[in-house]
């Protein structure tokens, strides 16, 4: 008897006019895993995220979360069910403080303002932003903004956290901090699915890696295997490189 | 049936003038994201300019077109440089409201110095009516429409074929990219605002040949113009052109079929229904 997959993505296809942004993509994520989705630019990774979380409607296929069909549901409904995503370009609420930003996420789970506030303070402590709690959100550096984004997401008590390129634009030191934070998030019981370009993070964090190219899934497996796979190399570097190598 | 065709013709004629007005407004919006609430009042200034040129110097409105264009161009330049540019960095609300202030100022100042009375130009060079198998075609209206079409296509040509025109289109498409490419976006801003105003000046001269002229005439034209621009899709020049004609026709036909007093309501309803179905307008 096989357990119902935590996240089950079945044959998702999404077309924009003639362009196949996602083409028959299937994969699953088990509870407690950290899974990375990689692929060259335009491979359809962010579109896939949007399809799973209700920001785009799917043209074909289904998405199941904990056995429940969440295909084409509204984003806020899916969020309430426990699937939370971030966007490639970090978004925070401008005329609020860091604390207020996190509280906004927290209102998904609590009603009383006092409860929301104390929970938000906990999240800020978790991500290390406590001493910046009264700063205006726009004043933060990129890396702090990303941590704020994670705090906001955590305040929503997700079971599955989907991060879209959370490592982009970080310095080496900030990268290590972010990797540590994601590990901490998983250790606290949150399953993590990321779209990522920064290979260092992918190699270190992932239990499994899924590779997309031009909307299709081409390879799936443990990081070391995937990276050595000739098809993956060809996808990233192009046919000419492969020809030269031969 | 004949009446219906007549109204259709009238609608197209006024619609073409609307198109010209709308192009000026949408150009400004596309380039700098400012909705000029004083647009209708610029039109009023244009109309009055033609009126005074005719009354005091005997210049037929058709010949006042170039004068209007230049005068309103300069006025637009002035207003952009000394007022609008100052609010560009501020909140969006300030940009919306500053043009309201300009609108109230201009219309009431005009009422002060010219009195609120209605004026009209009675004898223009090309006046009268043609009768084409029962359909009456007012010559001034017809000439205005031709003038509108010529000017509109002149603007299209300018934007697509001159260096400055292409720069304007570039800024419209992607401001930051244009900046990186070395385009002086501030200069493009003031130029676009000035060109938009010049177009309104031309429309004013054309309208003055048959429409009544008074300080508050801008109000309704302005509102209809916003609807047209939004309907066409903010920033789309083709959209503004098409929507202008569409609104002219709907307004005239609607007024004929239902009741003249509901003409405007029908235009507004048309706007609402269009953006409900297609939030970005026809070509946005």
């Amino acid at each position, binding site marked *: 008897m096989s357990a119902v997959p935590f996240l089950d993505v079945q044959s998702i296809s999404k077309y924009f006019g003639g362009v196949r942004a996602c083409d028959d993509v299937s994969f699953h994520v088990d509870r407690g895993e950290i899974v990375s989705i990689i692929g060259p630019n335009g491979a359809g990774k962010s579109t896939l995220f949007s399809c799973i979380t209700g920001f785009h409607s799917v043209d074909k296929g289904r998405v199941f979360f904990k056995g429940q069909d969440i295909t084409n549901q509204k984003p806020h409904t899916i969020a309430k069910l426990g699937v939370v995503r971030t966007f490639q370009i970090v978004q925070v609420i401008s005329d609020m403080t860091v604390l207020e930003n996190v509280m906004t996420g927290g209102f998904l789970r609590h*009603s009383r303002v006092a409860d929301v506030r104390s929970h938000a303070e906990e999240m800020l402590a978790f991500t290390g932003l406590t001493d910046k709690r009264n700063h205006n959100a726009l004043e933060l550096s990129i890396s702090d903004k990303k941590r704020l984004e994670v705090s906001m997401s955590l305040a929503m008590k997700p079971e599955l956290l989907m991060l879209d390129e959370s490592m982009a634009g970080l310095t080496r030191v900030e990268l290590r901090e972010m990797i540590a934070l994601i590990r901490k998030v998983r250790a606290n019981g949150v399953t993590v699915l990321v779209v990522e370009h920064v290979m260092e993070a992918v190699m270190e964090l992932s239990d499994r890696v899924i590779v997309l190219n031009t909307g299709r899934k081409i390879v799936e497996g443990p990081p070391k295997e995937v990276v050595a796979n000739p098809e993956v190399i060809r996808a990233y570097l192009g046919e000419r490189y492969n020809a030269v190598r031969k | 049936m004949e009446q219906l065709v007549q109204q259709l013709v009238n609608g197209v004629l006024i619609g073409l003038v609307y198109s010209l007005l709308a192009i000026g407004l949408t150009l400004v919006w596309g380039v700098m994201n400012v909705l000029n609430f004083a647009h209708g009042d610029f039109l009023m200034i244009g109309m009055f300019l033609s009126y005074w040129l005719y009354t005091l110097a005997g210049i037929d409105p058709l010949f006042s077109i170039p004068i209007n264009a230049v005068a309103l161009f300069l006025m637009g330049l002035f207003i952009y440089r000394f007022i609008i540019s100052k609010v560009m960095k501020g909140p969006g609300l300030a*940009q919306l409201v500053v043009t309201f202030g300009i609108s*109230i100022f201009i219309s009431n100042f005009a009422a*002060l110095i010219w009195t609120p009375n209605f004026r009209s130009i009675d004898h223009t060079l090309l006046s009268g009516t043609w009768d084409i198998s029962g359909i009456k075609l007012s010559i001034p209206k017809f000439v205005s429409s031709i003038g509108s079409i010529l000017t509109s296509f002149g603007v299209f040509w300018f934007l697509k074929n001159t260096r400055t025109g292409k720069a304007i289109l570039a800024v419209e498409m992607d401001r930051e990219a244009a900046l990186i490419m070395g385009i002086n976006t501030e200069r493009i801003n003031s130029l676009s605002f000035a060109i938009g105003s010049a177009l309104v000046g031309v429309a004013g001269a054309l309208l003055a040949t048959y429409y009544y002229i008074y300080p508050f005439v801008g109000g309704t034209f302005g509102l209809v113009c916003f*609807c047209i621009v939004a309907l066409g899709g903010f920033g789309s020049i083709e959209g503004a052109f098409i929507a202008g004609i569409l609104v002219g026709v709907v307004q005239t036909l609607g007024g004929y079929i239902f009741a003249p007093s509901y003409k405007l309501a029908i235009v*507004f309803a048309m706007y609402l229904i269009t953006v409900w179905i297609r939030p970005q307008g026809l070509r946005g």
Partner: protein
Amino acid sequence: MGMHTISGKKLAAGGALLTLLIILPLVSSSFGQHVMIITFMFAMCGVAWNVMGGYAGMFSFGQVAFFGIGAYTSSFLVLTFHLSPWIGLVAGGVISALLAAAIGYPCSKLRGHYFAIASIAFAEIVRIVFTNWDMVGAAEGLTLPMVKESLTHFMFHSSKLPYYYIMLLFLLLAVAVCYWVSTSKMGYYFRAIKESHEIAEVLGVNVVRYRLFAIMISAFLTSMAGTFYAQYILYIDPESVMIMPISVQIVLVAMLGGANTVLGPVVGAAILIPLSEYSRAWLGYKGTGVDMILYGTLITLISMYQPAGVWGAITNLMRRGK
């Protein structure tokens, strides 16, 4: 930003101000009282506008529609069914809120300029309909009969004072509602929506539903002000309660004061309304519109040099002074 608990200092200042407002009309001329009443009325509309505009980012330039519907509903019910204006007050508010939801729902995806123009289109349609609707007097409007002075009749002849205190109470109610909204879940969600629909959805906000909340609250409060106006002036017609300049005035009041603060519109009204009322009284009587020229100039200057509003400037000064 109105989100922290009220300090003792602020409470004391508020109390002093309130006392002043209670005493002030007793020492003012009739015209002075009138100016203050109109000030409170626009302040209330400005506060109501803030709920959907300043907080949720939906810049409505069509609030006059709800103002007018409030005025017409209560007046119609008084004239036709002899119902107390207080019932009309609630009825008008409910009708306005429902209409706001009906229009707001299809407009759920509209933002910025598109929304602003939709609000203008809506308000103009309402005005044109009422101008042609015989049941409510078409262009001639409705005149309320003078009845025996009483609170239930919402009518007072001998003095403006009762009107003053009632309007002040309405304003306090609006301020209380706005404050409650700003510090509650709704307020946080509104701000998220204002930032972007996307980020609001990401945070689990039902954007459509919360936008409707904002619009309905705003419409109800604005409608109350309209009913008050009808009972105060006793004559309403589309040209006095449904025209766009009123909508613009409301936005200005909120913007001048500070578009996303609770008390901003009150400050804005306190500056703008006496200015326009007194300049109309002194300069406008000749019909020359000099007062409007001044008004237009003022609006332009404010937008250029103090777009964050006076309240914003004051709080900035206070913050820097600390």
